[in-house]
């Protein structure tokens, strides 16, 4: 049931990415997870290597990164092909509990939701169920 979902994690903190992978795998059993500590690399992956596959993607995006912030990442993402963007659902995954950050996330049309770290079973469950319902109704 999970073979048709791909997870991408963009966060400069490698330990966080490790924990996320474990939690996703622990919750769903097996999963296709790819993590990037450099957001630029994640962008070029999506544009160049992912464009042919078009498997639905759940993307967890951190805000506070040194070379490119989550918001700057989204500015570049905006220019991507619509076909690609249709397949990608972006969640902000941040340690932030700052209300302005949440408000900013709400205002961005590419962001599905704001999740405060750490990621947990319940969050994974509801994200995947949502996604599957969406896909089913689309079909």
């Amino acid at each position: 049931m999970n073979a048709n979902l791909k997870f991408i994690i963009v966060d400069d903190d490698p330990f966080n990415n490790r924990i996320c992978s474990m939690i996703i795998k622990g919750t769903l059993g097996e999963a296709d997870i790819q993590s990037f500590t450099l957001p630029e690399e994640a962008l070029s992956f999506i544009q160049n290597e992912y464009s042919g596959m078009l498997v639905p993607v759940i993307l967890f995006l951190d805000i506070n990164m040194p070379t490119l912030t989550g918001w700057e990442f989204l500015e570049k993402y905006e220019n991507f092909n619509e076909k690609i963007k249709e397949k990608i659902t972006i969640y902000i995954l941040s340690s932030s509990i700052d209300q302005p950050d949440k408000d900013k996330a709400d205002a961005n049309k590419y962001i599905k939701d704001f999740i405060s770290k750490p990621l947990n079973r319940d969050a994974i469950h509801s994200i995947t169920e949502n996604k599957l319902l969406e896909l089913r109704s689309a079909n």
Partner: protein
Amino acid sequence: MEEKIRILHLEDMPLDAELVARELKRGKMNSEILVVDNKLKFEKALIDFLPDIIFSDHSLVSLDSHEALRIVKKMGVTVPFILITATMTDEFAVQVMKEGADDYIIKDRLHRLPSAVINSIKKYRLEQQQLAYQANIIRSEAKLKESQAIAHIGNWEYDFSTGKVLWSEEHCRIYGTSITENVQSYHSWMSFIHPDDIESVVENIKNKDSSSTDNTLNYRIVLNDGTVKHIHVISKFEFDEDGNQVGLYGTAHDVTEIRQTERQLRKSETFNLSVLNSLSSHIAVINNLGNIVARNASWKRFALENGPTTLKGTEEGSNYFKVCETAANNGDETAAEVLQGIKNVMEGKQDVFYFEYPCHSPTESRWFSMRVIKFNSEEPMVVLSHQNISERKFAELERIKITGDLIQRNHDLVQFAYIVSHNLRAPVANIIGASSALNSFSLDVEEKELLSQGIYDSVTRLDEVIKDLSNVLQIKSKLRETEEKVRFSELVEDITISIKNLIDKENIQILCDFSEIDEFVTIKSYLYSIFYNLITNSIKYRQQQIAGIIIIKSYLTKNKIVLTFLDNGMGIDLSKRKDQIFGLYKRFHHHIEGKGTGLFMVKTQVETLGGSIDIESTVNKGTEFKIEFNK
């Protein structure tokens, strides 16, 4: 008598006329004679011939000598009239002379005629001259009276022998007497003098110096109706042939109105000056050449207290433009601005020039405002007023400072909240995530090991953030560290020794130039930290493929000490993030270990020491930090 005498002869006997003409010729008389024989011709000749003298026979056919004399008088001809007749009784002669004839000649004794003509004409001309003199005298007398009345100047004459003082009409009028009371005496004159002035008048008269030609005297008189008048007198002595004083004469000028105007003017001047002088503002009027033509007491006082070096240290008569120009040439920017402002108002380019400027004395800091307004007068002038606005200005500066502090505090709080939610929260989230993974899932040994290590790292990071925050908060509260003289060269030396291994390993060259200024009184530990952070930053972000060079310089500007730190490192793209460069936990390089506290600490410490810091940077070229401290 040289000139030709024109004679009109009334005679109807040709033989008689011929006899007269011959007699005149015999007397070598240069004359032109016109003989007429009737009334009509006589009247016409009086107008056309313009005779110098008239001869008349006594009885002609058409008129007699009485009638002829009447015609002459009636026509206003004023020339001698001589009767020439055959016989004449004494009674008749008297009668004719009474009627206005000037002489008479019996025809039998015509030899007397030439001398009679000359005498008559001489006598007649003398009479005419006297009449003219008289008329002139009467005219000038009238003019004098009129002039005296217009000018309110009367004249008087004091004859010592009679003791009488003669007053002119206007003099009478000034003293309020009728013009018939023009004969007065010394005592009657004294009775008019104001009681308060009697003493000085008497004194003046007593000391009158007979050798001096002019004497002036001012006093008041009290008229009979009580009116008080101010009189200005100029007098002279009159001397007889032997040089003895025989009298005194002079003019009396009624100067009451002039005195009153003068007094009013003085009063209003005193009033204006008192008002001006009572103002605390320093006020001066300058003309279009910059000369100070007037100033009030405050201005003068300020000029005395502050000497000639300050902008406002200028006395009356000195040139304000020159003072400004000198100050401007010495680098005083406000002076140049003030000079331009004054000239603009002077030339009508702007109505008012207003300017606030600091003018600190060695003992106190002061602020002044300056207002320049065009002054209404014939030549272009402006009024400058300087006002001490220190109190208002300090309140204003205090308010700005408080506002600035509050904004900074608020900004700090927002930043603090951000740091708490991100930098404190991040390791916490990791710890929660890792511990829940440890507990919930079946993990292999390697995974468990990894999570335990991760939890330990996160806790360490958490601890570091807490320490950083505590450090920052301590700097902000400006601990009472003592200031001391710090040498830049020694700081760099200390730091290079402490990080010698790093410098050697990375092959870094540090070049210093502190020749212009090497010393600065400050908190040493802060300045050390600033130098340390900037130097280690440059080493950390050097370009690996070339030899790292750091150039540190110090120099002086007008009121600042400037330090620059230039390196040839990898640089930062400032186009997007210049505002964030000094932010806490801002990092711009992913691959190099950094907490993002270095530049934040540098900026905080620079600002705590009262300075400012700026950055210029080009990617792959290098970075320059510029720090400015107030002297």
